[in-house]
């Protein structure tokens, strides 16, 4: 009697799973989901993608070793020039609140000239990590590997780890820079050129 009930229940579950799978496939092939960047995801999809992204980065980045000289002026200078050339068009700079990229990309790239609490992309605080160290590991990982289907490329091809850490170094000070300081740091002086030769 109990075995019959169990079998019947198992059958029901199997049928439900098959129907759900077929329904999902039908939806996938129907082309009904709006893929344009000008139509936001629905709440459930956004939550799912965001959760998957953050969990994946957290798992992959947690064992990265952070260099102990990240605060050096040398790293800051090198990272500043690269940030300006490679990142500022999407992630902005002091005195700039939007660009064509920030208006058109979805999800919108975070304004890194603001503090993490303001742009809301600091990876959150899950209590499992030392927050500051995790923020550095996370930034390094994202710059190095990029994020699928978000517009964030992987900078690993053509950029070694040291160079990526230089950018992370600059990001730590970026939110507190004035427009004048940003201009001086990101420009290429004769002194900078001499150092790089």
């Amino acid at each position, binding site marked *: 009697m109990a075995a019959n009930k169990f079998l019947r229940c198992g059958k029901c579950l199997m049928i439900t799973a098959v129907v759900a799978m077929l329904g999902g496939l039908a939806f996938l092939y129907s082309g009904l989901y709006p893929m344009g960047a000008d139509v936001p995801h629905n709440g459930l999809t956004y939550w799912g993608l965001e959760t998957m992204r953050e969990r994946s980065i957290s798992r992959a980045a947690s064992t990265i070793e*952070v260099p102990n000289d990240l605060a050096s002026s040398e790293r*800051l200078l*090198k990272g500043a020039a690269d940030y300006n050339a490679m990142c500022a068009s999407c992630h902005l700079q002091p005195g700039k609140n939007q660009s064509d990229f920030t208006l058109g990309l979805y999800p919108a790239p975070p304004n890194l000239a603001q503090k993490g609490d303001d742009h809301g992309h600091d990876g959150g605080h899950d209590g499992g990590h030392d927050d500051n160290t995790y923020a550095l590991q996370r930034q390094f990982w994202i710059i190095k590997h990029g994020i699928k289907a978000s517009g964030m490329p992987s900078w690993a091809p053509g950029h070694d780890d040291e160079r990526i850490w230089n950018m992370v170094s600059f990001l*730590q000070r970026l939110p507190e*820079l004035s427009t004048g300081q940003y201009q*001086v740091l990101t*420009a290429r002086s004769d002194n900078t050129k001499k150092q790089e030769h």
Partner: protein
Amino acid sequence: MRSKFITLSIAISTLAFTLSAQAHDPKEHMNNAEKPDCAAMENMDHSKMDMNDPVMQAMMKQCMGDMEGMEGMEGMEGMEGMEGMSGSEAPQGDKPAQHGNESSTEQTGHNH
């Protein structure tokens, strides 16, 4: 003849691949980069400058030439010996040090 052709083909394709995989050189950015506007530093209150701040040190390095002889900068703590300083000789910032060693190593080996 045929082996020469194969060797030449392999050599050319290897060269093409190597060139395409070359690191994106920081010097590429220099061509379009603007010069630092060091005049802004002249308007700063020099007595309030923290010479141990890496941002200030980095700005000084950028403006080294322009700042020579700037009023109020002579004899300031941290300015001595700044000229000709290479990056590795720069004083370290006052930010708390991070743990780990200097060589940045990613141990996970994940590639996404």
